[in-house]
């Protein structure tokens, strides 16, 4: 089929551009580099839209397309092919990756204009997008793992893009090592699945799993937990979340790409993709929900105290991914994917907007030094406002409301969820609205801070406007029962992922919950308005209390996770390795050679060059030999 043949082109385009830029990037002019850099992902995005259109108008059989490119390896029972598979879940992902990736690249062409390594930047970005496409289109877990590692590598390269500052290199290494912990769990999970099923093909595993394992089977639980380990690392959830705030060391478009289109959503994709295994291991699935709920609160409180605008956004990403994990954990698969898509739109927009602000204010990250920008940067202000409304989930008018409300309602209604998990999510929603409103008020309102010296160009504002459009309108493709009952998105996703099992909940409670959450976010925004615009004095007086100061610094440092890891893990390892500087194991071969040297010295002593001494020894030897031969 012709459509299936388009798949490899979508994946190959970014890689081709990467190769072109990597080999010839130095020789090309800036403008040509920009055009080449954007063209690859642009083509992929166009092809993706074409594929999406055909999926909607004339859906293929089973709502999936696959195309085998070549056999990768065939050895000892492991047959792995490089083949791509597109179904409704991966279609949503590749749409987000290529489309948002394209917009981010367009934005970067201007944003990175005066930077060294212009071509290098776009080469990495294209490799990043290509790896992520491999990840979501892979039809077997090994190919998925290839993309998974590619994404990890690119995050390292891009976070440390400004490598001349050692701090950035440190942040890059931290991201790489922290995610690597999860990767190790994932590859062990892959080994386990291979020994159990003898194949790594995702579809085969998912169809064989329910026959092989009963619900709650210990092996299934182990496999699910190992996969979860990988997902936790990549998606920056507790307890492997500490790399994400430091990843802000990279350029803003990189943050946008990592947080919206690629990298952190890989974990969500992995769990959604292997949902059958999680359904067979209720404990693991419950762990997913609990990790998500905890992370969204922990990150939310941390976001509340940050002063660096990008760090606020970083923590908010952790928090929002926490919502997705919560949804995955209670079995609300389509809600998780829906929130992923909406989040990608508004989070990319927020990062790009923040990047633009930082650019025009000469690399000022501290939002308390900004202020009063709403008149001076109208386009950025309005787009940022729309995205923030989505993040804060302002009722009815924002896309974020519909996706987050869906998650909260399904958490409440699901048989796997319940009131406790709902309450955690609800508190998280309040905090989200609070820190979002705080960020907007502090940045754009209040007393004027640093004056912007330049206006962002068209290439920067245009992607912002497009993303704002999607952040606003994206929510209307999935409306709850109470408000119009549109189910375009979940209907589409349900061709791949199962429906949610709704528990015994009254229909009317949905409306009540919606009103509660809607009002809550409004109240939070109001509270932020009072605290940060009307009555700044109140905030200052609150800050004076000792308990608040301590809590503030505790949350600002991300709940002390970095310090704890430093003390529990890093220090003992460094201490031990310092003791073991000379390597205990080396003592064996070294000791052997030392003994040899010692005996050598003894024998050397006997060879003293004195002829008579030799003579005496020969005589002695002869006597000894004779004595022995006579005696024996």
């Amino acid at each position: 089929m012709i459509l299936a043949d388009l798949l490899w082109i979508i994946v190959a385009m970014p890689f081709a551009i990467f190769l072109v830029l990597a080999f010839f990037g130095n020789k090309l002019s800036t403008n040509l580099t920009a055009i080449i850099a954007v063209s690859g992902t642009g083509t992929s995005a166009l092809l993706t839209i074409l594929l999406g259109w055909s999926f909607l108008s004339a859906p293929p059989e089973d709502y999936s397309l696959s195309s085998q490119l070549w056999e990768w390896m065939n050895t000892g029972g492991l047959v792995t092919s490089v083949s791509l598979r597109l179904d409704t879940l991966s279609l949503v992902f590749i749409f987000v990756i290529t489309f948002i990736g394209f917009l981010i690249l367009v934005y970067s062409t201007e944003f990175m204009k005066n930077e060294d390594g212009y071509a290098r930047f776009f080469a990495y970005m294209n490799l990043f997008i290509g790896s992520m496409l491999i990840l979501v289109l892979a039809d077997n877990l090994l190919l998925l793992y290839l993309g998974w590692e590619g994404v990890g590598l690119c995050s390292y390269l891009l976070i440390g893009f400004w490598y001349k500052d050692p701090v950035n290199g440190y942040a890059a290494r931290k991201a790489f090592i922290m995610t690597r912990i999860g990767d190790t769990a994932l590859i062990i999970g892959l080994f386990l699945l291979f020994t159990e099923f003898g194949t790594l093909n995702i579809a085969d595993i998912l169809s064989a799993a329910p026959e092989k394992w009963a619900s709650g089977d210990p092996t299934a639980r182990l496999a699910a937990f190992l996969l979860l380990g990988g997902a936790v690392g990549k998606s920056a959830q507790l307890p492997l979340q500490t790399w994400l705030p430091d990843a802000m060391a990279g350029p803003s478009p990189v943050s946008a790409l990592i947080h919206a289109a690629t990298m952190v959503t890989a974990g969500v994709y992995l769990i959604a993709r292997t949902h059958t295994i999680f359904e067979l291991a209720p404990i693991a699935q419950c762990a997913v929900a609990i990790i998500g709920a905890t992370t969204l609160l922990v990150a939310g409180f941390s976001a509340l105290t940050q002063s660096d605008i990008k760090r606020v956004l970083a923590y908010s990403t952790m928090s929002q991914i926490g919502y997705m994990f919560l949804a995955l954990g209670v079995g609300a698969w389509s809600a998780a994917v829906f929130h992923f898509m909406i989040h990608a739109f508004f989070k990319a927009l927020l990062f790009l907007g923040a990047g633009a602000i930082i650019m025009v204010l000469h690399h000022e990250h501290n939002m308390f030094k900004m202020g009063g920008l709403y008149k001076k940067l109208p386009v950025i202000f309005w787009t940022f406002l729309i995205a923030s409304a989505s993040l804060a989930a302002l009722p009815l008018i924002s896309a974020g409301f519909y996706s987050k409300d869906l998650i909260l309602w399904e958490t409440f209604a699901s048989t796997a969820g319940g009131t406790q998990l709902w309450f955690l999510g609800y508190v998280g929603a309040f905090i989200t609205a609070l820190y979002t409103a705080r960020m907007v008020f502090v940045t754009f309102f209040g007393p004027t801070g640093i004056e912007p010296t330049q206006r962002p160009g068209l290439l920067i504002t245009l992607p912002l406007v497009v993303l704002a459009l999607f952040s606003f309108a994206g929510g209307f493709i999935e409306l709850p029962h109470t408000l119009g009952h549109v189910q375009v998105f979940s209907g589409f996703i349900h061709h791949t992922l199962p429906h949610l099992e709704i528990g015994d909940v009254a229909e009317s409670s949905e409306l009540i919950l919606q009103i509660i959450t809607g009002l809550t976010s409004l109240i939070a925004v109001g509270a932020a308005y009072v605290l940060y615009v009307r009555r700044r004095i109140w905030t200052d007086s609150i800050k004076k209390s000792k308990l608040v100061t301590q809590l503030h610094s505790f949350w600002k440092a991300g709940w002390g996770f970095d310090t704890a890891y430093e003390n529990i893990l890093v220090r003992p390892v460094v201490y031990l390795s310092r003791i073991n500087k000379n390597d205990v194991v080396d003592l064996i071969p070294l000791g052997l050679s030392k003994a040899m040297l010692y005996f050598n010295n003894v024998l050397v002593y006997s060879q003293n060059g004195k002829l008579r001494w030799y003579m005496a020894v020969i005589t002695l030897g002869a006597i000894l030999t004779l004595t022995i031969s006579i005696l024996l």
Partner: protein
Amino acid sequence: MVDVPLTHGIALAVVLFLVGLVGLLTRKNILFMLMSVEIMLNAAGLTFIIGSTRWGQADGQVMFIFILSMAAAEVAVGLALILQFYKKFNTLDVDAASKLKG
């Protein structure tokens, strides 16, 4: 011909050998060491002669002639070496040539 008992002959050979050995071990002068070696060779030759008389066979005599000729050759080479030694070290002390120590 007076019969000399076997043990007497052997004892003489042993004494000769020991004289040579002790001379070899105690003397520092390389010339005397060469002479000691000659004495030891003669002790060995004497043992062959005694053996051949005892069993009435000519093999021992033949061996002695071999030893004698070999000793002559050895003395020729040895004396030449000693001359070179003296030229190089200006002494006949054997301990002067101890460069081959480890």
